[in-house]
């Protein structure tokens, strides 16, 4: 699922401009598309390289997005988040959860490719939650 970064950014920028009513429709449409994408990606691809998998595994939000998300999460947790900020938080939920699923898929494939235990890769690539954040 190697979509050029520029197209992805453009899609995100468009989403950000949408009013709330259209946003719901857009998300439904994107979900339908992603279902197709997932079905495609379920077909085994013998040419999938370790580098491509690592790219998916190591993909994270940009530092600016991560900061913004941390701010939104904090506002939510202390109970002072505004409605518009809450909508923005839910957009991050969609993105992060989908990325997490893609990452899990790549980790499982990498474990098969390297013939390693998945748990070893989880320890190597996923954050250790100290339950502090």
């Amino acid at each position, binding site marked *: 699922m190697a979509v050029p970064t520029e197209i992805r950014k453009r899609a995100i920028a468009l989403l950000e401009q949408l009013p709330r009513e259209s946003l719901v429709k857009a998300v439904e449409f994107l*979900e339908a598309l*992603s*279902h197709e994408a*997932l079905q495609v990606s379920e077909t085994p691809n013998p040419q999938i390289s370790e580098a491509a998998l690592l790219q998916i595994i190591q993909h*994270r939000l940009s530092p600016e997005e991560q900061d913004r*998300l941390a701010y939104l*999460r904090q506002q*939510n*947790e*202390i*109970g*002072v988040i505004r409605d518009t900020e*809450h909508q923005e*938080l*839910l957009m991050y*939920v*969609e993105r*992060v*959860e*989908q*990325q*997490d*699923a*893609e*990452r*899990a*898929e790549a980790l*499982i494939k990498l474990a098969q490719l390297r013939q390693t235990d*998945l748990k070893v890769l*989880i320890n190597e690539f*996923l*954050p250790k*939650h100290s*339950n*502090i*954040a």
Partner: protein
Amino acid sequence: MSERTPEPMRRIVAARARSYCEYCRCWEQFATESFTVEHIKPRQAGGETVLENLAWSCFGCNGHKHTKTQARDPETGEKIALYNPRQQFWSEHFSWSDDFTEVIGKTSCGRATVEALRLNRFGVVNLRRLLRSANLHPPQNVESDK
């Protein structure tokens, strides 16, 4: 009121849930965003930061629950209190679909909670499907599953 939950308390809440979201049953291990201490009765509604009012929740369920305490059962239209992991058992209100990718509400409370917290969010369903293929889903031996 707008204080963060004290760290020792967060650890207790996480350990009690064995690092699974107490709503959608996602495992924290696969999440890049840390899970959250969820106030079952929201602080804005006077909910206190006491163990009896706290649940361990993924970032998505927490975001969707927000300040809700009730939602409509999509089957009857009746407004009902959301699932309370401290007072109710997960398995009494929810079950898995045959392929274990979706949470099914078994009761009015279960159905209302599935809708309100969107327990079958797209990314979460995909994650369940993948983890199922690796025998890592559904979670086993989680206290509130019993």
